[in-house]
């Protein structure tokens, strides 16, 4: 996995010092219209939170919400389970930087390994600049506007969260923090206090959105921000697929990313949320994602974790209406110095609900892949059926895999199965492919692609293709 050579060394101590260090030049920002100048210091304080809210001209209730969340954040201890969070120095982070400031980075600053990956993946020039935070705007702005017009005709709302709050306050307020309350956990509290950017998606009843909505194309100031907040509402019978992230590595000097995603799928609705995460390896990626599926609704999380130094993420589904269905498909790739602590949680809270979790993880070069999951059949959730399968591939001696599933069953007629396995690439498979003319490296790549195929086949095609290529590159060891 890419280890940026110039800016974020793999040594933790130095990385710690680097956090926030290059924010020195953006110590302040100006609004050219009002000439309003604000110094955004490091660390978190009531003043910083008030200023964020004020800068965005938010309604009072949102400002109060942020302030209360700040209190919760301070009161909660840092979790001691999962990855190693002790290294995070909360006071040494800038919690709000206006995006236009970010783009003052120069191409020279971008680590070589990332540039190399761009080459190998054939990423277009403008896109490279965007992914590295060098370019100001991604040139698909034209595409984006066309997409927006089509959506508006159907009554679909797709915009950044800041605008969503401004233009559709009623809808936002109705659902805001009902799925993930601000005191749910420390990182959700943090996001609730300093959130900025993210997506707001609203799909009216019976509307099927044909094309996947891609966050990538959502032009706004806070794309790929540190503390994105997303809210997706699918009315009865609606159908929508939302995609965030991309396979190409995203270089971020923000070392702490903590997003919150809330989804409500009303009766008969279908929502699929796909994430491909490939943050540079200096990033701590700590996310809270949760969905509610009401009667007869279907919720699917497709979660691919390739990058970051540490990711802690357990997309969850609450099946709260009869015959609701939930699925979590997850791929995690942990390379040198990486810890992917991922999985999923499904809670059956109504009768006749079904679910499945398919998690695949690959660990290489000392990387650590952890599956952490919860399967719960609550009282009253009669006739529930669920299956969980987690498989891990360890590609060498130095790597590590853990599986920590929890199964809690409170109804006697539940039918629940869970299987997990950890192994290396099978000798027989290798031998078979080599006998057909492939060399060991090619054979290994093919096997690994086959290993993750049940999940990659659910990705939009261009992601699937890129995903395969990226994994192949990782296998070659030509990166990092």
């Amino acid at each position, binding site marked *: 996995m890419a280890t940026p050579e110039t800016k974020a060394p793999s040594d933790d101590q130095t990385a710690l010092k680097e956090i926030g260090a290059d924010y020195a030049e953006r110590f302040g920002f100006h609004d050219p219209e009002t000439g309003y100048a604000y110094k955004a210091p490091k660390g978190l304080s009531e003043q910083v939170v008030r200023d964020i809210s004020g800068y965005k001209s938010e309604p009072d209730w949102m400002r109060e919400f942020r302030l209360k969340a700040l209190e919760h954040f301070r009161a909660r201890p840092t979790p001691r389970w999962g990855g190693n969070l002790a290294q995070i120095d909360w006071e040494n982070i800038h919690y709000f930087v206006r995006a236009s400031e970010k783009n003052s980075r120069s191409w020279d600053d971008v680590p070589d390994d990332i540039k190399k990956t761009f080459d190998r993946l054939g990423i277009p020039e403008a896109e490279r600049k965007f992914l590295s935070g060098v370019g100001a705007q991604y040139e698909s702005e034209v595409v984006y506007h066309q997409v927006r017009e089509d959506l508006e005709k159907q009554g679909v709302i797709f915009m950044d969260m800041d605008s969503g709050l401004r233009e559709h306050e009623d809808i936002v307020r109705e659902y805001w923090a009902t799925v993930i*309350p601000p005191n*749910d956990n420390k990182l959700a509290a943090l996001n609730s206090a300093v959130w900025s950017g993210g997506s707001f998606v609203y799909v009216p009843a019976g509307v099927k959105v044909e094309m996947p909505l891609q966050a990538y194309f959502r032009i706004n100031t806070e794309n790929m921000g540190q503390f994105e907040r997303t809210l997706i509402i699918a009315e009865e019978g609606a159908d929508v697929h939302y995609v965030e992230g991309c396979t190409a590595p995203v270089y971020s000097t923000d070392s702490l990313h903590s997003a919150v995603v809330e989804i409500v799928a009303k009766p008969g609705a279908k929502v699929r949320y796909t994430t491909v995460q490939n943050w540079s390896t200096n990033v701590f990626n700590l996310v809270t994602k949760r969905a509610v599926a009401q009667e007869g609704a279907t919720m699917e999380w497709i979660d691919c974790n390739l990058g970051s130094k540490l990711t802690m993420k357990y997309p969850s589904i609450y099946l709260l209406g009869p015959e609701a269905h939930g699925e979590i498909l997850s791929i995690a790739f942990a390379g040198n110095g990486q810890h992917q602590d991922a999985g999923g949680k499904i*809670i059956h809270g109504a009768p006749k609900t079904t679910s499945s979790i398919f998690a695949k993880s690959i660990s290489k070069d000392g990387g650590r892949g952890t599956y952490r999951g919860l399967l719960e059949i609550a009282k009253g959730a009669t006739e529930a059926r669920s299956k969980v399968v987690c498989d891990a591939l360890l590609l060498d001696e130095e790597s590590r895999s853990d599986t920590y599933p929890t199964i809690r069953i409170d109804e006697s007629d539940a039918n629940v199965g869970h299987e997990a396995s950890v192994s290396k690439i099978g000798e027989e498979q290798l031998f078979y492919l080599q006998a057909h003319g492939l060399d060991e490296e090619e054979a290994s790549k093919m096997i690994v692609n086959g290993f993750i195929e049940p999940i990659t086949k659910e990705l939009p095609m261009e992601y699937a293709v890129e995903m395969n290529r990226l994994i192949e590159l990782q296998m070659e060891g030509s990166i990092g």
Partner: protein
Amino acid sequence: MTSTSTDDETVVAESITVCRADELPVGAMRLIEAEGRKIGVFRCGDGELYAIEDRCSHDDGPLAEGEFDAAACTVECPRHGSLFDLRTGRPKTLPAFQPVETFEARVENGEVKLDH
């Protein structure tokens, strides 16, 4: 003493005295223990009394001891932030999704009485 009939049984509810009525103004909560469980009695903005079990249906957190919003008549569990409607005992936000037990509380002769 009040009694209610359920099918063949006649269940006799017991009531205990919580405190004096003037000790529980709007915005206040009293915690009381009855037969091994803790129950919180609240006076909401509408002037009415509401009582719920002090145990969140999500993870057994001390629900009644959380932040009480008298105007909205809700209480927020201190453990993971689930908001509960005191009138119905139902959660308004996740992570809780099952209701908690509610109890009848009323004022009798200047005292707050709780049926449990």
